[in-house]
C-alpha cells in the first residue's frame, strides 16, 4: 500500500513549494485562501509549515497554480534555490529581474530534474573538474591565454578548432548545460553549488557562433570564479569588471588559439595571388573556428594580422554577414540545440525503459507533451545500443558474460 504522503511529508518544505508556486502564479495568500475556503491566516500557516494541508486543499491549490500535484509530493533532491544566489544581482535592477528571473527558475528546475534522474538511475554525473584557477592580481590577457592553453591540453583538444563545444563541456567536464529561450539581450546564466556543480543556461535563440562564445565565457566563470553566479547580457557594464574581461579574453583564446590561427592565416595568404587575405578568407576562417565574423576580425586585428578598425570599415561598407555566408555556401556549424544535455536525455530514456519513471514523468523531464516524448524516445533508442527495455541494465565490463547477455537481449 502506498504510504500516506501528507502524514509523512516535510510540511515546512511543502509549504515553501506552495509559496513559490503561488508567487510564480502572481497570486496573493488571500487569493489562495479563497480557493480552499479558508482564512488568510490558515494559508499563512500552511505555507509556514505549521498547519498540515489536507488532500482536497492540495489538489485545489495545485490546479489553481497550474502545477502538477506530483511536483509537490514526490521525493526530489533538495537544491539551494538559485534566486537566493542571484539576489544580490536583482537588487541592482528590478526590470532586469523581471526579465530574467523566470529563466533562472527554469534553469534551477531543470538542474534539479537532472539530479533527480541521476538519483533514480543511481548514476551520478561524472565530473572532471580542474582546480579553480588563481587569477587575482594576474595580467588579464596572459592569464586568459594560459588558462585556455592548459584547458585545451587537459581536455585533449590540441590547438584545432573545437567542433562540438557543448558536448565537450557536458561530457568531458561534467557541466550541466541547458539551452533556454531568453530575451535576446541575455546570453548566459552561470551558477554553481555543491549539490549540482557547475550549471550553465545558454540562450537558445542566439546563433550557434554566439552560443559557443557564451559557452566558453561561462566556462571561464566556472574555471576562475566558480562560486560566483553570473547573468550576462548586452550593455550590462559601464565599465567591464576584470572577471568579465578575463572571460571575454578566455573565449577568444580558447576558441581561436594563437598558434593554430596564425598557421591558418598564413596558409590562406600564401594560397592567394599576391599574398592577399580576402573577405572570403575572413568568413571561411570564422566558420572554421565556429566564431562570429566580428570576433574573428577583432582577433586578427589584435594579432596585427589585419589593420586595426578593419571590422568598422567592413561595417561602414554595409557588410551583410548572413548574406555573404549564404553566398559562400558556408554550411551550418555542427550543433546540438536541444534544451537538455545528452546525458540527461539518456538517463531519462533508461529510466523509462526500466520502468523507473512513467511515460508522463518522462514527458515532463523532457519538457514536451506525451506524443513528442514518444517520438524523442524512439530517436533516443535508435541512437542507443539497440538493446532496449529490460535488457539494458547490465554491466558491459563483465566481458565474460557479454555475448550471452547481448544474445539474450536480442
Amino acid at each position, binding site marked *: *500500500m*502506498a*504510504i*500516506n*504522503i*501528507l502524514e509523512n511529508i516535510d510540511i515546512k518544505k511543502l509549504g515553501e513549494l506552495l509559496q513559490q508556486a503561488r508567487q510564480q502564479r502572481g497570486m496573493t495568500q488571500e487569493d489562495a485562501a479563497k480557493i480552499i475556503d479558508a482564512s488568510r491566516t490558515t494559508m499563512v500557516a500552511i505555507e509556514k509549515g505549521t498547519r498540515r494541508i489536507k*488532500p*482536497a486543499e*492540495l*489538489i485545489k491549490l495545485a490546479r489553481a497554480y497550474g502545477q*502538477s*500535484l*506530483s511536483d509537490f*509530493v*514526490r*521525493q526530489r533532491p533538495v537544491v539551494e534555490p538559485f534566486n537566493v544566489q542571484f539576489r544580490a544581482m536583482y537588487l541592482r535592477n528590478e526590470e532586469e529581474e523581471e526579465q530574467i528571473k523566470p529563466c533562472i527558475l527554469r534553469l534551477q528546475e531543470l538542474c534539479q530534474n537532472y539530479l533527480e534522474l541521476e538519483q533514480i538511475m543511481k548514476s551520478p554525473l561524472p565530473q572532471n573538474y580542474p582546480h579553480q584557477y588563481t587569477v587575482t592580481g594576474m595580467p588579464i590577457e596572459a592569464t586568459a591565454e594560459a588558462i585556455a592553453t592548459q584547458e585545451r591540453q587537459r581536455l585533449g583538444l590540441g590547438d584545432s578548432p573545437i567542433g562540438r563545444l557543448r558536448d565537450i563541456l557536458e561530457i568531458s567536464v561534467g557541466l550541466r548545460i541547458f539551452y533556454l529561450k531568453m530575451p535576446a539581450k541575455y546570453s548566459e546564466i552561470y551558477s554553481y553549488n555543491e549539490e549540482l556543480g557547475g550549471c550553465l543556461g545558454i540562450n537558445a535563440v542566439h546563433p550557434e557562433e554566439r552560443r559557443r562564445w557564451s559557452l566558453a565565457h561561462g566556462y571561464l566563470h566556472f574555471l576562475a570564479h566558480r562560486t560566483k553566479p553570473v547573468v550576462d547580457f548586452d550593455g550590462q557594464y559601464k565599465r567591464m569588471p576584470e572577471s568579465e574581461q578575463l572571460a571575454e579574453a578566455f573565449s577568444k583564446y580558447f576558441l581561436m588559439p594563437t598558434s593554430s590561427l596564425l598557421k591558418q592565416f598564413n596558409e590562406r595568404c600564401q594560397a592567394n595571388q599576391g599574398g592577399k587575405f580576402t573577405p572570403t578568407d575572413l568568413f571561411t576562417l570564422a566558420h572554421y573556428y565556429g566564431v562570429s565574423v566580428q570576433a574573428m576580425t577583432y582577433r586578427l586585428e589584435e594579432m596585427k594580422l589585419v589593420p586595426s578598425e578593419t571590422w568598422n570599415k567592413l561595417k561602414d561598407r554595409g557588410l551583410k554577414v548572413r548574406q555573404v555566408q549564404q553566398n559562400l555556401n558556408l554550411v551550418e556549424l555542427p550543433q546540438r540545440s536541444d534544451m537538455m544535455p545528452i546525458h540527461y536525455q539518456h538517463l531519462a530514456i533508461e529510466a523509462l525503459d526500466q*520502468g*523507473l*519513471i*512513467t*511515460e*508522463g*514523468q518522462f*514527458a*515532463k523531464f523532457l519538457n514536451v*507533451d*506525451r*506524443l513528442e516524448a*514518444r*517520438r524523442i*524516445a*524512439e530517436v533516443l533508442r535508435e541512437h542507443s545500443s539497440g538493446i*532496449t*527495455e*529490460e535488457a539494458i541494465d547490465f554491466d558491459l565490463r563483465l566481458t565474460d558474460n557479454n555475448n550471452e547477455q547481448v544474445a539474450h537481449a536480442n
Partner: protein
Amino acid sequence: MQINQSHLLIDSCCMLNLCSSGQLLNILQVIPAQVAIVQEVKQELQKIENAIDFETAITEGLLLTVDFESEAEEEAFVNYAAYLDDGEAATGAIAINRGWAMATDEKKATKFFTQESSSLKIISTLDIIKYWSEVANIEQLTLNYVLNQIRVKGHYIPHRNHPLRSWWETVIDKQENQ
C-alpha cells in the same frame, strides 16, 4: 477481454493510442462498459495536437469526464502522485476506489497498481483493439492499418513482454508482407 465493471477508466497513454488509431469513436462504441477519463487526462490531451477525437467522443456521450468524489479518492490521488504522473495517479485512485476497470499501457503504473490492488482490472490498448476487431468483425487490412496508425502517429510499440506482442507482430507483419 472481459469487463465486468460498470466503467472503464482510460489513462493518457492508452487514450493517446486510441486517438491515434483514427477509430476512436467506433472503438468506444463496442466497449462493454461506460468509458471515462479523469480531469487530469482530459487537460493533458487537450494540449496535444492530433488528439482531437476525444472531444467529439465527450460531446457524443461515448466518453465521460470524471473527478474526485470522496476524501478517499483525493487521499489516494495525493499518495499515488508521489510515485506516478498526475494523470496516471488520478486514474488509478478513482478506478480503485470505485471498483472500476482501468486501461493503461504504462509499465510503471501497471506494476504499481497491481501491487496496490489485487482486484483492480487492468487492460491495455491492444486488449481493446483486439476486442474491437473481433466484436465488430474488422477486416484484417483495416486492423493492420489501425495498428500501424497507432505505431506511426502514436509512436506506440508494445514492449517485448506484452501478452499480445506476438498477436501485434503477426498483424503488423501481414501488413508489411502485402
